[in-house]
Each structure stands twice: as C-alpha cells, then as structure tokens.
C-alpha cells in the first residue's frame, strides 16, 4: 500500500523527501566504497572486524541479478551457500536481496552489502553518507543505522537457518553464523574517503526480533476491518477518510519522523482531545486521564476522584501555578 499517496489524498501529505544533492552524494560515496571489486570495502571489513583472518586479496563477487524479488532472494541464498562452502576466501555480495516475514506477509530487504568472511561467517555492511567526524558520528543517525542493520541480521539468520535445515548439506558443515557486529561505513571527516566502524547490534536485534514476534498478523488486522473497506487513493477523500478511520491508530509525536500518515493521525488525535500529541511522557504522567478536557476538569476540581494521586497532584499543581503567576503579576505591577 502506498501510504504517501494515501496521505496526500487525505489532505495531510507526508513531509518526507530526499534532496537530489544528498542522493547524488550518497550514491557517489557508495560507488566509491564499492569500486574496484569492493577492494576498499573488504580492506575496511578486514581491518575493523576480522584482523586475524587472511587479508582479502582476491575476493569473489557473485552475480546476483535475477528477475523479481523472489528470484533475487533465491539467488542471494544460493550465493551465500556457495560462498560459505568455499571457506578461506572473502566474498562480497553487492545489494543482495533478503526476505523476512513481517506480520505474516513477506517483505523484501536490500542491504547495501553482505560480506562472507574466510571463516564462513557473514557480516552486514551499511554504507551511510553522514560523516564520521574525528571518529564519532551523530548518535541518532548511528542508532537508526544500527536498527536498520539489525533487521538485515535477522533476515540473514533466517537464511542461515534455512541453509542448515535440510540434511542435504555436506556433513559437519554447521550452520553458518551471522555476525552480530555490523560494519558501518561513513565518509571520514569532510572528505569522501571511507571510514569504517564495527557496530554491535545485539540489542537492536533482540528488540526487533521481539517486536516482529509480537506484531499483529496482517490477516488479523484485515479480519477486524468491516467488509468492503478499500484504501485505494482513487477513492473520494471522504470515503478514504472513513476507511482509514476504521483502522485503530495510536498516534504519538515520534510517529512524525517515520510514518507518512502521521499528520493525518495527529489531526485526528488532536481533534479527539487526546493528551498523547503532547508527548508520551505527558501521557504517562497523567495516569488514567487521557483527554485534555478530563485533565483540566480534574485540575480545576470539577471532576475526578480527589483520592486518586494523579488528581490530587494535578490540583496541587494548578493551585501552585496560579499562585506563582499571581505573584509574578503583582511584582510586575509594582515595577
């Protein structure tokens, strides 16, 4: 489903987009890192992750082209198996295709690269164009890259389990292992020379695995919808709005950074008078009071149980606030 065009039809277009300057720069950097048969990339992988291994002199670069994402995923799995069987040399998979089941339906993922080490273990490579300044990059961006890489690690683990699963493999060749340290490649300082750093994604991997396991299956969501609901952007906006309303959403300000429909959900959440649009911490602070009206009424003493600690604190806060503002106004009047 194309959420971006859906959001546009709903009258709350997504704020996302990429500047062509950033795109050009990102592509140029990735091409540079992978140039020359990935020699530079493998050198960085050797240096940052696997110093004990043989330096990568002649790496294999299998061709991964195939038709359709399924075909490419199958081709990738095959290449991974071959590379793993042929231990002792380095292999670089450029833009492999991985499949991962998300909420009961398959999603296809395309990491920047996967490296197979001489010991047969696999490493996810993420190439980003934000700079690593004096050895440190923006923490928020590194975090986002780590979360992204963690999903690739999970998908690779599925492939690994699959390869090890059927008994046809050569006896004794245990399951190939996916390394939990991924290679993050960024431009060094203000140049476009690559610098690499190993990032441990165990925590992100665990979080993502848990979230994936807990996701409601798509069929269940679909089953909960009324018969005949359709999200086609060609529908008139009123019908479309009604269709989107049928899906429960829990908006929080964090959605703004990730979801195309966030502005639509925010509008609805605000219209409903919910407190969550002010932030999750605000929501958490207010206990059972979830709407602006409820909270203000409780603070003014018009509603709510005075024995409820949240209500009591609110009333106290309201009194103190009023006092302070009155005091300040008096001081201002004297001046």
């Amino acid at each position: 489903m194309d959420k971006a065009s859906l959001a546009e039809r709903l009258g709350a277009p997504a704020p996302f987009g990429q500047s062509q300057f950033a795109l050009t720069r990102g592509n140029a950097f990735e091409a540079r890192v992978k140039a020359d048969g990935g020699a530079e990339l493998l050198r960085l992988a050797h240096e940052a992750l696997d110093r004990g291994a043989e330096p990568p002199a002649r790496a294999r670069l299998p061709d991964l082209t195939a038709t359709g994402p399924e075909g490419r995923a199958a081709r990738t799995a095959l290449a991974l198996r071959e590379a793993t069987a042929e231990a002792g040399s380095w292999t670089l998979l450029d833009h492999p295709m991985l499949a991962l089941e998300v909420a009961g339906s398959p999603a296809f993922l395309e990491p920047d690269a996967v490296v197979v080490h001489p010991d047969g273990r696999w490493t996810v490579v993420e190439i980003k164009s934000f700079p690593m300044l004096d050895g440190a990059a923006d923490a928020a961006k590194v975090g986002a890259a780590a979360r992204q890489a963690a999903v690739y690690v999970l998908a690779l683990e599925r492939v690994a389990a699959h390869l090890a699963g059927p008994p046809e493999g050569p006896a004794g060749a245990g399951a190939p292992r996916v390394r939990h340290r991924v290679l993050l490649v960024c431009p060094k300082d203000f140049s476009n020379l690559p610098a690499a750093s190993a990032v441990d994604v165990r925590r992100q991997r665990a979080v993502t695995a848990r979230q994936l396991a807990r996701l409601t299956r798509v069929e269940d969501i679909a089953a909960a919808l009324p018969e005949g609901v359709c999200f086609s952007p060609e529908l008139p906006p009123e019908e479309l709005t009604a269709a989107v309303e049928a899906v429960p959403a829990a908006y929080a300000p964090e959605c703004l950074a990730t979801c195309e429909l966030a502005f639509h959900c925010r509008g609805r959440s605000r219209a409903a008078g919910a407190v969550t649009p002010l932030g999750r911490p605000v929501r958490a602070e207010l206990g059972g009071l979830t709407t602006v009206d409820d909270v203000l009424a409780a603070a003014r003493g018009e509603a709510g149980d005075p024995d409820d600690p949240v209500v009591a604190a609110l009333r106290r806060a309201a009194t103190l606030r009023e006092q302070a503002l009155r005091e300040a106004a008096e001081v201002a009047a004297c001046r």
Partner: protein
Amino acid sequence: MSLITTLAQLEAVRTGRAQPAATVRHRHLSAAPLVFVPLTTAGEAGAPLGALVGTDRDAPHLLVVPQPRDRDLRFGFLAELADVVLPYLEAYADAVEPAERTERDSGTGARVKVEVELCADAAQIVVPSRAGVEYVRLLGRSTRFRRTAEQDPQAPHPAPPRVPLLGRWLTHYGERARVPGSSLLLAMTDLLGRHWATGQSTLEDQHLGALLAWIDPPAGGTGAEAAHRAELAREDGQLLCPPAGPATDPAFDNKLLAPAIERYDRARLALAGAEDGLAADGLLRALTEAEREVRDLVESRTRPTWDAVWRGLELLRRLPEGARVEERWTRDRWSFTGHRDRVRSGEPPQPRRDDAVTAANKLAAREREQARLDAQEALDDPLVMAGRRLSGEAFAGEVVDVVMTYSEGRRPSPRPLVTVLTDDRPHLGERVKVYRSLGGRAQTAEFVEQAGDGVLVVRIVDKMGRGKEPEPGSVPEKGDPVCFTLFEHEQRGGARLPEPEDTPWTHGGPPGAEGAVAEAPDAPTEEDVL
C-alpha cells in the same frame, strides 16, 4: 518536565495560545546580538549554501555559495563570514575592566589573587535552532585546522587569512553552548521553549515557525492554526514558512535550487570557454544573472527565519531579566576573555579530541553549571519554584512562631527555632539541611520536627552575625512569608583534578609526543570539483 508545565501545555491546547512557562527571562540577552541564520547543502558535511548574518535587523549581510561543492567559492563564503563575525567579536575583546582571579601558585600551591583583565561585555551569537548550534560547531571544526598561505606556503589550497581564526572562535562558542545556562551562543527555539509552553510536543517545538506561531499568533487566529500553517502550508509545492535550517526542504532543493545551480555551472563553463572579449562580456552578464538567481533563492529561504529570530528576541526582551542571570553572564564573560587570551598568546587551535583532564574538567563544569542553573532559576522565578515545591524539594509558607534558643558551648550563638505553616509536602528527614535566600545569600537551617499537619519547625544555624543576639533582619519574624529549599543555592566545585602534565597512566598519561605536534589540517577532498 513538571506537572506544572504539563498543565500549561494543556491550557495552551485549550486556549490555542502558548502559556508562560517562566515569569522572568532566564538567559542574558545582549543589547546587540549577532544573529546568524546558516543554510547547508544536503548530504555534504560542512558545505554551506549561504547565510544571513548581522546585528542590524533591517540590514543583514547575505552570503551565498552559488556552487557549494567548489572549494574557492566556499572559502570566499568563509572569508566573508569572518569579515562580519570577527570585527564583531574583536570589538568586545578590546573593551576590558580590571578584575581579580584566584590562582594557585605553581610553586607553593598557595592560592593567590592575580590582577587580570575581564572583558566588560561579551559577544553573543543567536542562531534559529539547536541544529544551528551544531552547525556553528561543525563550521568551527571544518575551518580551525585550515592553513593560510602565511602559515604554510606549501599548503595546496591555502585558506583566506582570517578563516582559521574564525574557526577557533566558532569552536569556542559551540563548546560553550554545551554548558547549561550559558548565553554566548543561543538557539532561539530553546530560548522560546524555555519561557513558553505550547500546545504541541517538544519535538514539534523544534520548528521555529510553529513555535513562534503558538506564542505570537497573527491577529484573529489561534496559535494552533498558525502553527499548522507554518509547518505544512505550501504554494506551488514550496513551504510558505521555510524550515529554520541549516537543512533545506528537499522540495526546494529539487525544484528550485538544483536547476539554479545547474544554470550557474553552465554559465561559468560557457564563460571559461569564451573566445573573444565581446562574447565574454555577454557571458559574464549571464553568469552574474545566474549567480543573482541563486542569491535570491537563498535569501528567500533565510529571510523569514531571520525575521522570526528577531521577533523572538523582541518577545523575550519583554520579560524582565531574572536576578541571577547577570551572575551567569559574568561567567560567560570569563569564558570569552579566556578564549581571547588563548588566541592572543598564540596557542594552537583546540585539539580534535580533548585530553583526559580537560575532558573530565569540562564534564564536571557542565554538571556543576546544571545544578547551579536549576537552583538559580527556581530562586529567580516563582513559577519554577512552584515546580520544585510540587516535587517536594522546597516549601513555602508563613512563619507562625519564633523561639530563641542558643547553642551549647563556651560562646553560645543564636539558634532560633522557626515554625512554618505550609501547604507543601517536602521530603524532610531529621536534621536535613534547608536553605533560604537572605539578601541574595543562602541562609542554612536544620529541620527539627513536624509539629502537626503542615507545621514544620526548623532551626536557623548561620548568617546571624557574630554576637549573642542575631543581627536585625537575619531571623524571620512571625507573619513573614518564607521559602526554604532542600537544594543548595551555591554549587561547590568537586575535588581538583591533576594538571594535564600529571595525568596518571590509567588515563593515557600526560599528553606526550603526539600532543606536542600541531594537529594536521584535514586532507583536501576530492569533492571539490569543477
């Protein structure tokens, strides 16, 4: 965030206007701040696109890099920026007043007073947002190691003369901005967010246009509507209220900026290939035209932000300055003077990474300043104090009884017992120290007992003079309003750290041979094409 601010936010949602989150101004504002609105090129680190800068609201300097990937044009921008910023900084560096500083004598370790200069005022830079503060740091980092032709005649691409100096100052300002409560380099969104609570999340408050819309909505509309418009309204696909930067809107980059830069590139190429003077004349005109186009574009995206920053300053100036703001500004002046002295004594630029002792000192200073800021803001502002009272860190009330007692010992001193009637519920244990402000200084008392619901007895222990009878005015009287805090008003420094040359081996040892070598400039980048 305290429940009191949350309530203010909810009131803002209800009324459609921002509500006060402070009753006084908690940051110093210079009489003539330098406003700096930079724009950067997407995807490039340290490739500025342009900026508006200046101290005159009606006459900003517009600086533009028509092709951000061209090194010479970039240096031209930085040189122009240095020509605006450095004279402004230097004007403050030259006006000094005598001051005293306590230093430790290196030989004996005794504390001695030294006569030094202190700049009478410091230069203040205001940027639109927190990202702008980071950008100032980044510009500082990208320029302070550059070499000029004078410093190094062999340098492949010498920087214009004053650019490395600009980098050192920007680095100092960027570093100082990390100290809580400092005002040398301020972000307008932080300033406004500190003093007003809006009906949106703190995440959305990072948008200067939307934040200002809540605080100062246009006549006849609510802040919520105006904020929504500022965030999202577009005309011909372009945002009506451009983002405060330094990042630009991708739609602007793709639809307007990229074609304009391309035209500029083509015009430059054509001029370079001109065959005779007559043709060159026309091509030069075309190039000037193309450059003007980029300039107009950059101005159209920075001018709204420029106006917004000044509008914000105007709103903030209406708030009376907090009583202890001046004291914190004096610390900023010391910081400014210290950097001036380091530059004048010919010290090398700030290193890429701090040594262990410097880093630990910086961290300790930030923690100390945070505690100082928390205490001072509460003492300056009843609304902030209300938050501390709500969380049980302070109590205010009326004195209902004063009983004089004396300490035991050869020379009995006054230890009056003061009974306070309060509605607050402070977290007090036996002999917990509490403090109140007495003529700007902190007077200490000890909690004695709770004599009933809301009746607290404390014993005052200092600031009553040397005599047997307390000095007049030093002990509250019956009927006086008092406010005691559980937190200290003055921050004591922690244990002293060793000098850098005495760094223990556990922390890398003294900065040795590699520290002595001046930091090398960054390698030239291949990105600088054309």
